């Protein structure tokens, strides 16, 4: 198992990725220290509806963070796809047939690898959040936004597991090309749905949407949100494990190893 995981680590150029990620975190720290919330410059100051003075640098960094989370989610998918492409290109699965290696272990290695990537990127995101919050000014609106960025971390990573609960079996059972086709069709459908909403939907809903209302709603339903944040990792891990069991069932009955 360790060998399979190491192979996947090498296939995504793991050493370079790790050094790059560490470097980016350090760069983020340096920039955050230089452009902290205490860096007062008239050009960067704004006033909220509540009359609070907000440093736009804080807003810029806070805006970056959800984008970083999105990038991390995509990176997990990207890295997993790379491992599958690497295996297909180098005929790893055919090579494995010649070894006393259980097909179950190969499948497990993919699931574990995605799990490890999810954990690592979640940890990196938390580190970035901690760095950001330490140098952010103590304005209520900003603090609430930062708390929201923290709150979406675990559910977002649960979403990664849910996505891969479908992605991994499709890749292993049908191959990477077909899997990418399914993925493209899926996201195109989502894209069409969004465009259709903007063309034909009731856009007044967006006018009524207010960030403050979201914060108030979150405060009002703190217990329900706490329960969701507790249960979401457990539920998603359960489905992830279930997906593994189903994939193993079909993969063991697959004739030969498709390349």
């Amino acid at each position, binding site marked *: 198992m360790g060998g399979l995981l190491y192979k996947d680590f090498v296939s995504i150029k793991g050493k370079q990725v790790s050094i790059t990620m560490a470097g980016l975190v350090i760069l983020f720290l340096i920039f955050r220290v230089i452009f902290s919330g205490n860096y007062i410059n008239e050009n960067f100051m704004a006033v909220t509806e509540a009359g609070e003075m907000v440093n736009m640098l804080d807003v810029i960094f806070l805006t970056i963070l959800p984008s970083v989370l999105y990038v991390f989610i995509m990176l997990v998918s990207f890295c997993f796809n790379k491992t599958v492409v690497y295996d297909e290109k180098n005929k790893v699965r055919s090579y494995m047939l010649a070894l006393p290696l259980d097909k179950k272990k190969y499948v497990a290695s993919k699931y574990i690898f995605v799990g490890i990537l999810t954990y690592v990127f*979640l940890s990196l995101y938390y580190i970035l959040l*901690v760095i950001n919050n330490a140098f952010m000014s*103590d304005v209520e609106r900003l603090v609430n936004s930062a708390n929201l960025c923290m709150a979406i971390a675990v559910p977002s990573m649960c979403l990664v597991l849910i996505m891969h609960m479908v992605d991994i079996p499709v890749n292993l059972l049908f191959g990477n090309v077909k899997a990418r086709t399914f993925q493209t069709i899926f996201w195109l459908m989502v894209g069409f749905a969004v465009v259709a909403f903007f063309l034909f939907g009731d856009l007044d809903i967006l006018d009524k949407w207010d960030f403050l209302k979201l914060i108030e709603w979150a405060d009002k339903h703190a*217990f329900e949100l*706490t329960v969701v944040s*507790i249960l979401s990792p457990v539920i998603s891990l359960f489905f992830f494990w279930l997906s593994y069991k189903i994939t193993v069932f079909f993969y063991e009955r697959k004739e030969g190893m498709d390349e």
Partner: protein
Amino acid sequence: MNKKLELKRLLIYLAFSFGLAYAWFFITNMKFETWGEMSSAKESFIALGMLAPLSAHILTRLVTKEGFKLYGKDSMMFGISLKDKKWIFFVLAIILPWIYIELGNVLTILFFRELYDPEYYLKLEIDKRILYIYPLAAIISGVFASFAAFGEEAGWRGYMMPKLLKLFGAEGEGKGAFRGRILAVIIGGIIWGLWHAPLTCTGHNFGTDYPGFPYVGIARMCLFCTLIGIMLTFITVKSGSVWPAAIMHAVLNSGPSILNGYINTDLATTWVTKYYSGVWQLLVLIVLAAICLKLLSGKRVPTKA
């Protein structure tokens, strides 16, 4: 085994670990604010110093050229194996902190009745429903945000403790090995406690308002680290991995307890209840540590994770 070489390697690790951590703690708190004065965001930022032991471990292996094996003998112990009933130690890692804290709180309420406040959680503005699911929330958040605890355990249990166990001849069987284990965990605990000294001096864990601050606090921290260290070392040796220890450490930091919402130390009227309300938790910890030390038998560190 070349004891001189192992000692040299250990000293290199300690130099890196203390150097990096103390530098971080100093740079991030140059105004020497106390733990109570600083914001929770700053506390979390300073707590990133918990990644120093992991960094020290990696740097030490680079310098000593010991390699970066993930599992097995003389490895970093980053691998995970659930075979041979090792999954039990992962379960223990999750529930032992809750048992220890809750049992300590039960004894605190029984013997220090003045501290019992049935509405304390209301003063803390905690929803009662959230209070009752708090242990589960703490366990799950501990497991998923265990990277900081992993940062510590990767160094202390992943490098320091195996070296200390070897140096004191604790890997064999018999009385000599048992004595060696006791010495190893005590020395390891004291080192770990001293590593926390800059934080203890700012009031982390024990505050600043106690007699003998900060020296008594540092001594208490060494004692606490020794006792917790025994449990963490036990769980690491038995599982062959630092991950159960990381999970246990993270869950412990989250403080999974329902009864914490009912114990109000502001109601203390005596010297003991004011400064040593945690004495019952300490007693529970001593018992658990003694059991772990006894169970830490003469079996070698598993060669395969």
